[in-house]
C-alpha cells in the first residue's frame, strides 16, 4: 500500500498522527531496535530512519553529533539497509529513509531504490535534493513506488509550494521555522498562517516539526496539520535516560 493511503487510513482513527526520527547506528542498532519497539507500541504512526552522513548540513547539533558518532562506531550503509528490512518485517507501520543525497548517489540511485523497495521502505526524505536536481531520482521514485517526500519552508512562496507539491508524494514535510533541526520554537499565529498557506498549496497530508516536547505542542497542531514530527527530542531522551524513557514520553504526547 502506498504511503499517503496508509497515513489517511490512520487519520480516520486519530485526529493527529505522530512521526518519530532515529539516527541509525546511534548509539547502536540494539538501542535503535528497542527505541523503535517502544515507539510502535505507544502508537507512533510513521518512523524516519536517518542513514548517517558525515556532512549533515541541514541538521542541528544533537543530530549532527548522532550522525558523527554513528559513523565513528562503524555504521555502514549496508548495515542500515539490513536493519531497515528487519524493522519493516517486525512492525506494521510505514518506515522512511531520511538521508543526504550523497549516500544515495554513491550507492547508485537505481540500486538504492531497488534495495529500499526490497527492504519495505515507503518513502525518502532527502533535504539537500531539490526537485531541480532530482529529475532521475523522482522518476525512479515513481517507478519503484517509494514516495519522494518534499519539504516546504517558511521562505517558500505560494508558487514554489505548488511546484514542490506537484513533485512530492506521500505527504509534505513542513519545516516550521528557519534554521536547523532540533531548535524549539514558539508556535504562534505566524506558524498557523504558514500552515494555512501549506494547506492551500496541496491536498497531501502535512507533517510539521518545530522541536515538539509535550502534549500541548502536539495538540496545538490538531486541525492545522496531519502529523507531528518528533526529532531531536527522543535522541536527547535516550542519551539522558536510556531507551526505556521513550515509551512513556510517546504515550504522553496524545
Amino acid at each position: 500500500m502506498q504511503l499517503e493511503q496508509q497515513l489517511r487510513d490512520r487519520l480516520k482513527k486519530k485526529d493527529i498522527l505522530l512521526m518519530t526520527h532515529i539516527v541509525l547506528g546511534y548509539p547502536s542498532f540494539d538501542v535503535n531496535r528497542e527505541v523503535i519497539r517502544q515507539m510502535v507500541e505507544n502508537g507512533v504512526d510513521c518512523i524516519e530512519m536517518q542513514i548517517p552522513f558525515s556532512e549533515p548540513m541541514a541538521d542541528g547539533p544533537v543530530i549532527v553529533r548522532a550522525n558523527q558518532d554513528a559513523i565513528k562506531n562503524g555504521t555502514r550503509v549496508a548495515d542500515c539497509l539490513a536493519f531497515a528490512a528487519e524493522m519493516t518485517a517486525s512492525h506494521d507501520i510505514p518506515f522512511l529513509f531520511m538521508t543526504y543525497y550523497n549516500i544515495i548517489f554513491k550507492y547508485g540511485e537505481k540500486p538504492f531504490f531497488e534495495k529500499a523497495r526490497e527492504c519495505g521502505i515507503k518513502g525518502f526524505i532527502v533535504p539537500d535534493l531539490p526537485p531541480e536536481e532530482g529529475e532521475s531520482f523522482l522518476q525512479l521514485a515513481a517507478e519503484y513506488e517509494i514516495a519522494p517526500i518534499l519539504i516546504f519552508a517558511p521562505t517558500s512562496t505560494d508558487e514554489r509550494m505548488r511546484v514542490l507539491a506537484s513533485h512530492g508524494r506521500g505527504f509534505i514535510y513542513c519545516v516550521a521555522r528557519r534554521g536547523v533541526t532540533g531548535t524549539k520554537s514558539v508556535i504562534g499565529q505566524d506558524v498557523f498562517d504558514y500552515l494555512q498557506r501549506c494547506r492551500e498549496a496541496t491536498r497531501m497530508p502535512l507533517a510539521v516539526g518545530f522541536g515538539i516536547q509535550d502534549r500541548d505542542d502536539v495538540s496545538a497542531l490538531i486541525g492545522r496539520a496531519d502529523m507531528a514530527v518528533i526529532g531531536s527530542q527522543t535522541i536527547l531522551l535516550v542519551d539522558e535516560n536510556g531507551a526505556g524513557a521513550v515509551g512513556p514520553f510517546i504515550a504522553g504526547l496524545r
Partner: protein
Amino acid sequence: MDTKDKQGFFGNWGGAYIPEVLHQTFLELNAEFIKCKNDPAFWQEYVELMSTYSCRPTPLTHAANLSKHFGGAQIYIKREDLNHTGAHKANNVMGQGLLVKRMGKKRVIAETGAGQHGVATATMAAKFGLECTIYMGEEDVRRQRPNVFWMEKMGAIVIPVTDGSRTLKDAINEAFRDWVTNVDETHYVLGTACGPHPFPEMVAWFQSIIGLEAGEQIMKQHGRMPARIFACVGGGSNAMGIFKRFIPESNVELVGVEAGGHGIETGAHAVRLSGTDGSPGVAQGYKTMFLQDSDGQMKTTHSVAAGLDYVGVSPILSDLWEKGRVRFESATDTEVMAALDLTMKKEGLIPALESSHAFVQAFKEAPQLSPDDAIIINMSGRGDKDIFTIAHAFNDPSWKDFIIKRGLEYSQDK
C-alpha cells in the same frame, strides 16, 4: 566552462543541492549576480575599489635568480600576496561586498580555513559597516592564531567549529547552518569557487581579475603568451582566477597543484584530482570529485597548508580536468618547505604554504623548458601569516627560544 548543459552545471559538475529554506535567497542571489555580470559599470566599480583599497593591479615579478638557478624557462610570479590582507582572497570578498550592498543585507558570514578568507571578510565588513561572523575549524584556530586575532580586532565574531574533522569543510557546514537560520538579513560570503551555484561561477568571475592582469603583463614583459601557468588548488579560487583568461589560449598549459601532504600513498593528503583517491560525489551543495569512502562518507584530509586541506574542489576545475584542459599534480609537505626555503633565499619572497605548492611543480618543470619560454606561478598569498607553522616546520631554534621566553613572560604577568 562555456558549455553549460544545465543551469549551474559545468559539464557533469556543479549544481545547487540546497535545502528548501535557501531556495528563495538563491533565486535573489542569482538574479543580482546576473545583473552585475551584465553591467559594465559594476566591473568598473570593482576594479576601482581594488585599485584604491587593495593593491591592484598586482605586479608580475620576473624571478631572475630562480630562472638562472634552474636554467630553463623564465619564471614570472604573479604577486597576489601584495593584496590588502595578503592574499587573493580579498578579490572575491570585495566583489561579494559590493553585491551585498546592492542586495541590502546587513550581516555577512564566512567560513575560513587558513584564516585568510576570514580576515579578508572581516576587513570588508568593517569597511562596509556590516555585522560579521566567521566560522573556523577548531584545529585551524589553533594553527592560525594570528588571523583569529586580526579578525576579532576588526570586529568580527570568530566561532570555532568543533564538529567533524574541525577544519574547512566543517566550517562550511556550520556557515550553512547559520545561513538557513538567518537567511533574511544575512549573506554567506563563500570563500572559494565551490558550493552551490552561483558561487563557483561568481567567485571565479571576481578572481578572474588575476588572469586578466597577468595576460597583459606577460605580453608586455615577455612579448608572448607563457608556456605554462602553475597554481595551487584547495577549493580552486586562485587557480580559476589566473587560469580563466588563458583557457582559450590553447598553447598555454594550465597546471593545478594539490596538497600531497605526507604523500599520496600514505592517505594523509588532499589529492582529489591528480591521484586515484577522489570519486564523484555531492556534498556542501554541489557535485564534484571528493575524497570519500565507498559509502560516501567524507574522509579526513591532511596538508601542512590549512587553505588546501579540503575534501572537495571547484566543479569548474573538475570539468576542466575531465576535459583535459587543466593538468593536475601534487606536492608533498616536505617538497613545499624546500621550495619555500629556496624562494626566500633566491628572491627574497615569502610565498604562503598554500602558494608554495605551485612553486614546487614549477621548479620541477622549469628546467625542461627553453630560456625563451616563460612560465607564471600564481603566488596566491604571502607566507608571513604562517610564521608559527613555518618556524615549527623548519624547527627553528632561535624562534623556539623566543616563544618560550615570551610564554614565560605572559605566565608571570598572570
